[in-house]
C-alpha cells in the first residue's frame, strides 16, 4: 500500500524525524488559514503541494492548463489562489499516465532555505534479507539515474535487524552525506528515526528525496525531510490499524478494489486478451505466452488456490468491464481442486454474465476428464485448449478474427 506525502511525514514525525512545518488542506480557505499560520510563525517562503500517489508533481500539468503541482508562494492570499487552481483538478505527471489523478488534498508547508539536497532511503536488501540504508549526496534528482551513471555516489549501509541502527552507523551515514557541525549532529539524530519508521511501521520502502541541509533563521544548519514517500508491506497491515486508515481508495484502480473484495488479485494492463488463472506464477506466464503468440494480455488475474463459481463470476464481471477486452483465456491447473467443480463454475459464470466474447478454457489436473465433459455438454460456444500453448494460440486466433 502507498500513502500520501503528508501521511508519510506524519509517520516520520512520530519517530522524531524533522519535517518542515505545515498543514493538510482540503479547501482554498483551509490553505489560506494554514499559510497564515506559517507566515505568523515567521516563515518567509511557503510551498503548496498536491497530494497524489505519483512522482513528478512539480513538473506536472493540470488538465485545466495550470502548470505545476508543487508551487512556491509568499503570502496566504497567494496560497489560496494556488489551492483554488489545484484542488478539484486533474494533475498529469510522467508517472500518472495520460489520465492523471484528481487532486483533492494539499499540503501547505514552510519552504525552508535549502543549502543542499541529499537522498536517503531504507529498503530491504533481498540478497541478504537485511535492511539497507541508501544515501547519496545527489538528492532531488532521479536516484535510478544516479545509480546508473555514478554508482560511487551511492552509499550503502546494512542494518542488523537484531540491534537496529547503531549510533556509529548513523555517524557513518552522516559523514558519507558530508554533513558537518550542527547538520552532522542533526543528521545523526534524524537517521535512526527514519530507520525506525521503516522497521516499526513495516514499510517496504521509506524514501526521503530530498533530505535537505537547510539554514535556520539563527544562521545555523540542520537537516529536514522536505519530501517523503512510504510504501507499506500489505502483509503487515493487520497490525497497523492507524496506517490502514490512511488507505486512499481514490488512488487505486476501481477494478482492482472490486477484485480484492473477492480475494482476486487483478492488475489491469492495456491489451485485449483477458486471462483468468490460478496461481501467481502461472498467471504471469499465461500473460507471457499470450504475448509470445502475438497477442496482448489485458490483465493479470490470479484467483488463488481454488476457483469457486462466485470467484469466477466476479472475475468475469471485472474482466468484462474493461472495454478493451476482446476474448478471455481461462487457464486452471486444478491440482487439488476438482476440475469438474471448476468447469461447473465456469459454465455458471458464463451463463450469469451472458458472455458473448470468445472464451478459451484450458483445464488440467484432478478429474479433468469430467471437467472437459461438463464444458463440452454445456451448450456454450467455448473453445478448449489442450495445453497452455494450444490455448494461447487458439485465443490469439479467435481475437484476430
Amino acid at each position, binding site marked *: 500500500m502507498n500513502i500520501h506525502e503528508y501521511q508519510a511525514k506524519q509517520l516520520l514525525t512520530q519517530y522524531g524525524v524533522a519535517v518542515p512545518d505545515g498543514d493538510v488542506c482540503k479547501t482554498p480557505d483551509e490553505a489560506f488559514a494554514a499559510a497564515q499560520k506559517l507566515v505568523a510563525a515567521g516563515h518567509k517562503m511557503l510551498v503548496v503541494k498536491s497530494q497524489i500517489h505519483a512522482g513528478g508533481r512539480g513538473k506536472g500539468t493540470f488538465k485545466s492548463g495550470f502548470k505545476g503541482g508543487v508551487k512556491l508562494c509568499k503570502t496566504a492570499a497567494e496560497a489560496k489562489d494556488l489551492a483554488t487552481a489545484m484542488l478539484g483538478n486533474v494533475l498529469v505527471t510522467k508517472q500518472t499516465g495520460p489520465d492523471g489523478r484528481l487532486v483533492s488534498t494539499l499540503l501547505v508547508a514552510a519552504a525552508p532555505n535549502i543549502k543542499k539536497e541529499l537522498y536517503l532511503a531504507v529498503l530491504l536488501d533481498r540478497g541478504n534479507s537485511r535492511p539497507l540504508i541508501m544515501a547519496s549526496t545527489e538528492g532531488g534528482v532521479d536516484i535510478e539515474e544516479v545509480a546508473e551513471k555514478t554508482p560511487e555516489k551511492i552509499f550503502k549501509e546494512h542494518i542488523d535487524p*537484531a540491534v537496529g541502527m547503531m549510533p556509529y552507523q548513523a555517524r557513518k551515514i552522516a559523514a558519507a552525506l558530508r554533513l558537518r557541525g550542527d547538520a552532522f549532529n542533526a543528521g545523526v539524530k534524524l537517521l535512526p528515526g527514519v530507520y525506525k519508521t521503516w522497521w516499526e511501521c513495516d514499510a517496504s520502502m521509506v524514501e526521503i528525496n530530498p533530505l535537505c541541509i537547510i539554514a535556520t533563521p539563527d544562521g545555523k544548519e540542520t537537516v529536514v525531510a522536505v519530501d517523503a514517500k512510504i510504501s507499506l508491506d500489505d*502483509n503487515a497491515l493487520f497490525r497497523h490499524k492507524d496506517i490502514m486508515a490512511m488507505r486512499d481508495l481514490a488512488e487505486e484502480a476501481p477494478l482492482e478494489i472490486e477484485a480484492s473484495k473477492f480475494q482476486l488479485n487483478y*492488475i489491469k494492463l492495456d491489451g485485449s486478451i483477458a486471462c483468468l488463472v490460478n496461481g501467481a*506464477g502461472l498467471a504471469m506466464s499465461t500473460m*507471457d505466452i499470450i*504475448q509470445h503468440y502475438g497477442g496482448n494480455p489485458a490483465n493479470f488475474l490470479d484467483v488463488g488456490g481454488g476457483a469457486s463459481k462466485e470467484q469466477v463470476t466476479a472475475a468475469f464481471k471485472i474482466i468484462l468491464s474493461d472495454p478493451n477486452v476482446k476474448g478471455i483465456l481461462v487457464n486452471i491447473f486444478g491440482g487439488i481442486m476438482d476440475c469438474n467443480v471448476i468447469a461447473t463454475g465456469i459454465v455458471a459464470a458464463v451463463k450469469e454474465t451472458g458472455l458473448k466474447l470468445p472464451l478459451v478454457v484450458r483445464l488440467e*489436473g484432478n478429474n479433468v476428464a469430467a471437467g472437459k465433459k461438463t464444458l463440452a455438454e454445456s451448450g456454450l460456444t467455448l473453445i478448449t485448449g489442450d*495445453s*497452455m*500453448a494450444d490455448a494461447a494460440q487458439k485465443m490469439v486466433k479467435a481475437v484476430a478474427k
Partner: protein
Amino acid sequence: MAILVTPQTKLLVQGITGEFGARHAKLSLDYGTQLVAGVTPGKGGQCFEHGGAKVPIFDTVADAVKQTGATASAVFVPPPFAADAILEGVDAGLDLVVAITEGIPVNDMVKVKRAMEGNSRTRLIGPNCPGIVTPGTGKDSHGGCRIGIAPGYIHKQGNIGVVSRSGTLTYEAVWQLTSRGVGQSTCIGIGGDPVNGTSHLDIIKLFNADPETTGIIMIGEIGGSAEEEAAEWIAKHGKKPVAGFIAGATAPPGRRMGHAGAIISGGKGTAAAKIAAFKAAGIGVAATPSEMADTLLKLM
C-alpha cells in the same frame, strides 16, 4: 535417492487442526507420507484421525519431536503466528521446516532469517510455497514424501529435479514431465516472497550433488536476483543439464504480480536480464511455459 526428504522422512504438521492444515495433512496421509505428529497448542493429547490413521497431536514441536522422532515439519499456521512457528521448529532441532503459509509480514521473515543465522542444522523452505514432493514408487507416485500442498498424483518417481518459486507453475512442469513418462527425484517450491529460507542456488547445489538427479528444471520469476546468482554458479560448477523458464516477461514495472517478491523495481529483476543470465550460463531457456519439459529433454 532424492534431496532433502525421502519416503522414510518422518513429518509433523504445525497447525494440523486448522482447516488448511487438516486438509493437506489428510492428503499427505493418503499419499503414503510418514506423517507421525501434529502440533496445535492447547490440543496436546488429542489425535488427528483420517482413514484409519491416528496421528498424535502435541502442544509443542519439541514434545512432538521427542515422542515421535519427526525430522521435518510443514507449517500451516496463520500469518501473524507463522514466524514464531518456524522458529519453534528450528528450536526443536528439526532438519527441515517447510513454511506453506502465505502472507507473512516481510519483517517477521527478516527476524527469522537473522535468528537462524549460524544455525547449520535446520533448513527452512518457503514461506508462501507449495512445499516439497519426493515421489514414491506406487501408483500415481504413492508412497512418497509430500510436505505441503502440491497434488501428489501428478508426480512420478524418477531423476529430474524441479525447483520453482511458484506453485501452479511447478505443477505445470511436473505434469509435463510425467505426461512424457519422465519422473522426478524431488520437486521443490521455494516460495514467492522476497525473503525466503532457501534460494534457487541452494537447491541447485543439492541437485548437482545428488547422484540420482540427472537433469534439472529451474523456474524463476521477475524480482530480485536469485535466478542470476544460480545461473552464475551453474556456469562454473554445473554438472547436469538445466532447463529454465522465467515468468513475468510481460509484467509492468513497479507492480506486485501476486507474489510479494514478483516485482520489478528500479529497473532490476526483469525477465530479460534473468533470461540473458540463463543463456550465458548454458541453461536451456523454454520460450513458453508449455515447453519446460521438452527443453530439458532435448538437452539430455
